[in-house]
């Protein structure tokens, strides 16, 4: 039976998290020979479905459109997935906030144990996943009839585009009356999205205030066309919003370039960024643990180093 990939999308556009989870699905299909269907569920999501139909390796796109699915509320979306489940061997999605919300609900209703946050496909039923904030990696084999999986997107390259496949409209499910959407407060930013950025500049508690964070980190990020991240300490201190948090309890990222400014390198932060290709640490404490994972370490006062760094980058 085929694999069902739940798409992450914003209606008008498809998140590249979907193409990364597709790579994991293709690896499973490499063992099982299964086809891959993508489910796009939303209120007005045809453009996202069209983008999904262009991804290489997908054989069909299911488009479920209903007002009840507008905000990816867990209850109606789980109902839809549970209804589709008997036709599939595997249900998987990138481990976004939305998928982490809905898939365990689906797994419980199917009486299966979800495999969370896989970083490697070992075989059709065996996967590697991090535990203890990435300080250990477990290889687990599932004995369940249906596999429900979330994928750590930072560990998989995005699948390419190629050709186009049919989009099949399916019934959208109905409102359960259990939950209602009230409002969104989503940050609107010109900068690249943290989860998929090629470069990230992150600030820590050493920044000292929300004003300094803004005045020191943001210009450097703009020079590099980078996304902005923060350590949990900086978020807890109120210097940066929570959705900028990189780490075990925030986002796990793997950009080409990660610049850690005034971040000491607590285990929980390293868990979120240590798979970055090149890591730069700027910190005035030469003993800071961040230097143990940094490809380039610069010991110095960030308020002196950063303006110089910015100038040198522009020259």
């Amino acid at each position: 039976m085929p694999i069902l990939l739940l798409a992450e999308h914003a209606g008008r556009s498809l998140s590249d998290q979907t193409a990364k989870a597709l790579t994991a699905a293709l690896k499973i299909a490499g063992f099982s020979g299964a086809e891959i269907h993508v489910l796009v569920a939303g209120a007005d999501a045809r453009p996202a479905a069209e983008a999904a139909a262009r991804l290489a390796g997908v054989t069909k796109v299911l488009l479920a459109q209903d007002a009840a699915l507008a905000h990816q509320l867990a209850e109606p979306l789980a109902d839809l997935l549970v209804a589709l489940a008997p036709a599939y061997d595997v249900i998987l999605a990138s481990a976004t906030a939305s998928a982490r919300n809905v898939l365990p609900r689906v797994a419980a209703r199917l009486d299966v144990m979800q495999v969370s946050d896989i970083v490697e496909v070992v075989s059709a039923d065996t996967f590697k996943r991090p535990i203890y904030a990435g300080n250990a990696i477990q290889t687990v084999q599932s004995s369940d009839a249906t596999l429900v999986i979330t994928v750590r997107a930072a560990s998989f390259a995005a699948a390419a585009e190629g050709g186009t496949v049919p989009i099949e409209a399916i019934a959208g499910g109905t409102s359960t009356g259990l939950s209602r959407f009230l409002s969104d407060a989503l940050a609107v930013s010109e900068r690249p999205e943290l989860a998929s950025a090629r470069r990230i500049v992150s600030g820590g508690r050493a920044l000292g205030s929300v004003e300094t964070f803004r005045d020191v980190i943001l210009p450097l990020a703009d020079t590099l066309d980078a996304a902005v991240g923060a350590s949990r300490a900086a978020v807890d201190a109120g210097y940066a919003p929570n959705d900028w948090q990189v780490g075990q309890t925030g986002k796990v990222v793997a950009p080409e370039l990660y610049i850690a400014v005034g971040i000491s390198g607590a285990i929980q932060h390293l868990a979120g960024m240590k798979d970055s290709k090149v890591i730069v640490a700027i910190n005035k404490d030469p003993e800071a643990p961040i230097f143990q994972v940094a490809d380039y370490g610069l010991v110095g006062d960030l308020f002196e180093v950063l303006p110089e760094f910015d100038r040198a980058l522009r020259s």
Partner: protein
Amino acid sequence: MKILVPVKRVVDHNVKIRARPDGSGVELANVKMSMNPFDEISVEQALRLKEAGKASEVVVVSIGPAKAEETLRTALAMGADRAVLVETDASVEPLAVAKILRGVAEAERPGLILVGKQAIDDDCNQTGQMLAGLLGVAQATFASRVEIEDQTARITREVDGGLQTIEVTLPAVVTVDLRLNEPRYASLPNIMKAKKKPLERKTPADFGVDIAPRLRVLWTEEPAGRGAGVKVASARELVAGLRNAGVV
């Protein structure tokens, strides 16, 4: 309204864990154990709701070895009213935990179940959502704000890119995120008092739950290390290095 709060005994978050060289798991002998940090936040939130007159009783429950009583006593010392210990020495997966919690919830009939969004040992992030699915009630995950009305709760959730606010019908399962509150420390008199608070002992079999694992752990290893690179003396030298590496 009664609030049910599951708590898990885990390796303390300050401990640097080690995988056993034979691949059989993580070394847990003589390691400091504590309440899962997210569960401290859910206990704290339950207590605040009780103090604000929104709840009448806070019941904490743990599924684990006899020593999980310590974790429950910590929650009782923070201010919870009574505890249920579902005792087992086996490692219990989130699905089985959720099934046991369903049994506890059916007996206790809470109006609200507050669950930590994930345990910092297995990092699964599943139990609350699974419990809501099994009970057929509403769920609100990753909460950074919880407001209780009469028959509903208004929850602000931490989602990718910002915040989402939803309203859920009670009873509901809410999983809590870091910014919801700052948990209190138990005072010495309260730690003493907690020793006398009621604690009921159960087993998974009392709830008719089969806790046999569905996932077989084949191997546990430490991730490939990442060596330290070079120290550069100036910003100019740093930029030269990054240009050589082709990342700027």
